[in-house]
């Protein structure tokens, strides 16, 4: 469709005080030959809005609105899916942060308008990817998390398929005699309620339960997964929209802690064995079957020990307190000792802790276990009581080790791969945890990047702990319960509901052809100009979400519903063949090309700053709202993720005479804040390489800088700008200016 452009310049909020609006209009009408350029003192008001609406009715299909930030007044300047709107931020990025009626301020505004025009000329309104979508939700795992997810999704009106590999539902919770209190006054043990839960689930017509079933493979993408099941030898196939993985945990093997005597002494057992015994009835000594009259619980059997489980398992303190009551309930004269590192009973659980302390036979001590030995039918536990500063010893019938949680996605043995070294030598190396191949098989995904969801170093799925809980690095697959993080029943149920909602959002968004979090409004998706593809695999390797599969000839096969629209593949592509309708290598290059670069003797350097739209760009807006002034020689370009920055933009900028390039994104590393997990990490790796190239070309590597900030650090942005400009000043003008 032919572009019909309208340019609208707002004079409100101080813009006309700071800028020569008529001169600005001249940029559009004279330089860009736009016929229709209007200005209005108050564009977002009724009259101003009518002005634009009128033009659109008369055929304008592309509106360049030079007013406030694109993050403001989104509802006002929205003309439906067929009109492309380009926003030029004259308010937050020009009028509010630079001196009024200043030459440099005017030049900045004019450049921004040029850049907006360049973009508007090339960008198209996105058309959604549309496919027939199945909204059924697959829940993998029939423990408390899986069952809760299934019930929650069904209650919200969705069909659910629940797959459990054991012959019956329930998981760990079905093995409990009682659960610790979940209700006020948090003093007495409660029934687990599991039978009622299973009954409700089985009676729900929206839920189809497959017990004794395993997944053979999952093909496809959100909204159109094909799931192959094998149940009691028979194969079934399911059409699925999105997936909740609630595959639970296994207890850590305390046999690895030799000094605790597990496996050596019969009367040293785990909390799991204790629970089994309690559920069957009497708590007795495994060695002679006698009822116990004294028990010692040892907390942290490996937990919070860097050599074993570096993390807290969240439920074991409460479980030992609960099991202590089993013992005193069976024999009121029994003596129970709990030796702990720290008692961790958060929130209302504190009341239960207190209640168990009140029990006459229960004794607690903070200490380190020095040794466990057996003599005369009793187990002696020697503990250094840190609060007494001396050793104490107890002779007990039974020792219970509070075993911790290992995520079921943690592989028993780290998988290895045979690789060829650069010298041509074959070598077996361990697969890194952060890959889709480092996990215990559960989903059998037919993804190029591996069959399971990528995990973190402890085997938990890479599910951002603050910003994006439940999400994993596979769009449409959400983790819940102990597979995701160590947690107890109540927290698992919360998790389960959260993951179910995420799964529902996914199928709904997918049905609309929109992305899931964080670009939930986004209908664009990447298209590949395959004739020029060199099968380099950069896009298939670098997509954090495993969006691309591959055909036999190594051509990338996009699965648009797996895509989060970050553009990392676009940034990765050396052939620049990956584009979105409104975001492409060419669009940004055009923006770079229209920036006016003054002659070196004018001493007006130019710097391009690529700012991540997730944190850095909103932070820049906040700096604007707070009227924090900064250097006017910087031209900011918002990018979907720093990972979407293609290095050709660096080359384009430098060859044009731009003096420096700044990139500001989110934090990367173990506690990353990157909204697309790997984007800022990839950006810094790529830029590191670009810097090397620059040095080879005798260009100063200081001309490129990558910075990372969080959304709240808006005060830092002007500082970063000013410091970088100082650096550019000391490096001197880009020698390519004169070429």
């Amino acid at each position, binding site marked *: 469709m032919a572009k019909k452009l309208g340019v609208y310049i707002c004079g409100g909020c101080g813009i006309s005080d700071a800028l020569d609006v008529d001169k600005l209009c001249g940029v559009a009408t004279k330089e860009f030959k736009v016929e229709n350029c209007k200005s209005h003192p108050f564009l977002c008001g009724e009259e101003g809005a009518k002005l634009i609406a009128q033009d659109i009715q008369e055929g304008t299909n592309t509106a360049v609105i030079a007013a406030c930030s694109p993050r403001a007044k989104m509802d006002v300047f929205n003309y439906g899916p067929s009109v492309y709107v380009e926003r030029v931020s004259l308010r937050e990025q020009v009028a509010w942060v630079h001196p009024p009626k200043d030459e440099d301020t005017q030049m900045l505004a004019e450049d921004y308008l040029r850049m907006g025009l360049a973009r508007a000329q090339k960008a198209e309104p996105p058309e959604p990817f549309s496919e027939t979508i199945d909204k059924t939700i697959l829940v993998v795992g029939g423990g408390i998390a899986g069952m809760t997810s299934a019930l929650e999704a069904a209650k919200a009106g969705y069909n659910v398929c629940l797959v459990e590999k054991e012959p019956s539902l329930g998981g760990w919770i079905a093995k409990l005699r009682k659960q610790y209190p979940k209700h006020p006054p948090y003093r007495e043990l409660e029934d687990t309620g599991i039978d009622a839960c299973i009954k409700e689930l089985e009676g729900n017509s929206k839920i189809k339960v497959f017990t004794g079933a395993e997944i053979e493979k999952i093909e496809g993408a959100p909204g159109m997964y094909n799931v192959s099941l094998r149940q009691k030898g028979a194969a079934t196939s399911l059409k699925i929209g999105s997936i909740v993985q609630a595959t639970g945990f296994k207890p850590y093997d305390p046999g690895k802690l030799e000094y605790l005597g597990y496996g050596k002494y019969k009367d040293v057992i785990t909390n799991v064995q204790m629970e089994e015994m309690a559920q069957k009835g009497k708590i007795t000594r495994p060695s002679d079957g006698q009822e116990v009259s004294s028990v010692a619980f040892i907390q942290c059997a490996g937990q919070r020990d860097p050599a074993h489980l570096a993390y807290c398992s969240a439920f074991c303190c409460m479980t030992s307190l609960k099991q202590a009551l089993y013992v005193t309930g069976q024999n009121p004269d029994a003596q129970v000792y709990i030796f702990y590192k720290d008692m961790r009973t958060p929130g209302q659980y504190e009341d239960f802790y*207190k209640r168990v302390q009140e029990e006459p*036979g229960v004794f607690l001590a903070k200490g380190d276990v020095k040794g466990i030995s057996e003599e005369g039918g009793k187990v002696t536990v020697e503990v250094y*009581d840190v609060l007494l*500063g*001396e050793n*104490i*010893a107890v002779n007990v019938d039974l020792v219970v080790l509070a075993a911790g949680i290992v995520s079921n996605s943690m592989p028993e043995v780290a998988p290895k791969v045979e690789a060829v070294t650069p010298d041509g030598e074959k070598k077996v190396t361990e697969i890194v945890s952060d890959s889709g191949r480092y996990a215990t098989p559960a989903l059998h995904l037919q993804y190029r990047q591996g069959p399971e969801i990528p995990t973190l170093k402890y085997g938990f799925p890479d599910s951002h702990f603050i910003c994006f809980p439940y999400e994993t690095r596979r769009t449409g697959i959400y983790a819940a319960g102990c597979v995701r993080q160590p947690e107890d029943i109540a927290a698992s149920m919360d998790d389960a509901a959260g993951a179910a909602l995420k799964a529902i959002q996914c199928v709904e968004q997918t049905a609309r052809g929109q992305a899931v979090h964080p670009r939930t409004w986004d209908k664009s998706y990447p298209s590949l100009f395959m004739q020029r593809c060199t099968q380099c695999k950069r896009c298939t390797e670098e997509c954090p979400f495993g969006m691309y599969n591959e055909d036999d000839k190594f051509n990338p096969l996009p699965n648009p519903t797996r895509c989060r629209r970050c553009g990392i593949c676009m940034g990765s592509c050396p052939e620049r063949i990956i584009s979105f309708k409104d975001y492409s290598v060419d669009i940004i290059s055009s923006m770079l090309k229209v920036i006016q670069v003054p002659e070196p003797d004018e001493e007006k350097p130019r710097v391009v700053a690529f700012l991540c739209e997730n944190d850095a760009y909103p932070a820049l807006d906040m700096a604007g709202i707070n009227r924090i002034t900064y250097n006017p020689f910087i031209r900011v370009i918002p990018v979907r993720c720093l990972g979407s920055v293609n290095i050709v933009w660096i080359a384009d900028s430098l060859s044009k005479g731009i003096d420096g390039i700044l990139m500001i994104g989110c934090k990367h590393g173990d506690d990353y804040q990157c909204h697309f997990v790997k984007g800022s990490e990839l950006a810094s790796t790529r830029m590191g390489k670009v810097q090397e190239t620059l040095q080879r070309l005798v260009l100063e590597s200081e001309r490129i800088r990558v910075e990372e900030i969080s959304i709240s650090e808006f005060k830092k942005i002007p500082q970063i700008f000013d410091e970088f400009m100082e650096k550019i000043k000391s490096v001197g003008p880009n020698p390519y200016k004169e070429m």
Partner: protein
Amino acid sequence: MSPAVPDKETVDIIREMGGGTLKICYQCGTCTGTCPWNLVRTFLPRRMMHRAQLGLIDFGDKDIWTCATCGACAVRCPRGVEMIDVIRAMRKVIAEMGVAKVPDSLRVSVKNISYVGNPQGEPEKERGSWAQDLGVKPFAPGTELLYYTCCIPAFDAKVRRIARATVGILNKVGIDYGVLGAKERCCGESVRKSGNETIFQELAKGNIQAFAESGVKRVVVNSPHCYHTFKKEYPELGAEFEVIHLSQLLDQLIREGKLKFSKEIKKKVIYHDPCYLGRHNEIYDEPRRVLQAIPGVQLMEFQSSRKSSVCCGGGGGRVWMETPKEERFCDLRLKEAIDAGADVLAVACPYCMLMFDDSLLSIGKESTIEIKDISELVLEAL
């Protein structure tokens, strides 16, 4: 050293003796961080609680007798452990079961109380002699108010001034009151805190009976310790009389206009909250209002006052025990009052007076500051 073996029986005894809340201690150490002893020496209530929790109590440990029962730890304890009850239970095991030695001076004082009804060991019949020249009536049936004299003002030559000032005020105001003299005995509050439950019960029952026989309905006391036990412990043993602290009575009289001042006391007066009046019974405002009502008085506050007031060191039987000179936190309190520029340190408790008087002598600052009971100040201004 072979490791200690926790002993449930000992814990059970402490629980039976009234120290049951020790079970819920979770060892945060707020008590140790709060205890005033740590201003002058190391004293670890937290560790003491943990020892007791495991039944690993060393009954020969002198620190069992160290606690002044000031209650500063208990009001801050996040778990509601009644530390004083636990300490009292341990002392009870020693005093009543004879498992270890009771400090000599305490033993003598308690013995005196048990024999003659006062810690000083003075003849019982002399209990009323402090009032000989003051025209005080013996309490007779129908008398409105009993002035119960604590043993300290009754027998201690220096502290006697509290009792004399008290009746001076009562006489001037014209209240219908009387004293029981030899018929009353020590209230037993500190006797109980030092673990001597049996003697306490005898004392309490004796007093309850004496009060009942004389028809006592309302009692005014100087000592917050008497106040505490009369108010909180005697009723369980059958007492039916009402008790009021002198500061409350004075406050009431001032407000009713029955007590009018005619003189000015142009002095800076700093008020020390007695633990048993403040923390234990939450009477903070009445003594302050009384002092503020005296013309000319400029009332000052300690940095730590009211709920956070620092003990004089005299509670829990400590008043009868020797405290090494360098370990008296009472001295610190007095120095703070002097540094603050106060002319008078006002107290509302005979134990506090006794302790501060001692401190004043030992730090040699008699000319810098005076120690006065609020009754003395009120009488001066009448």
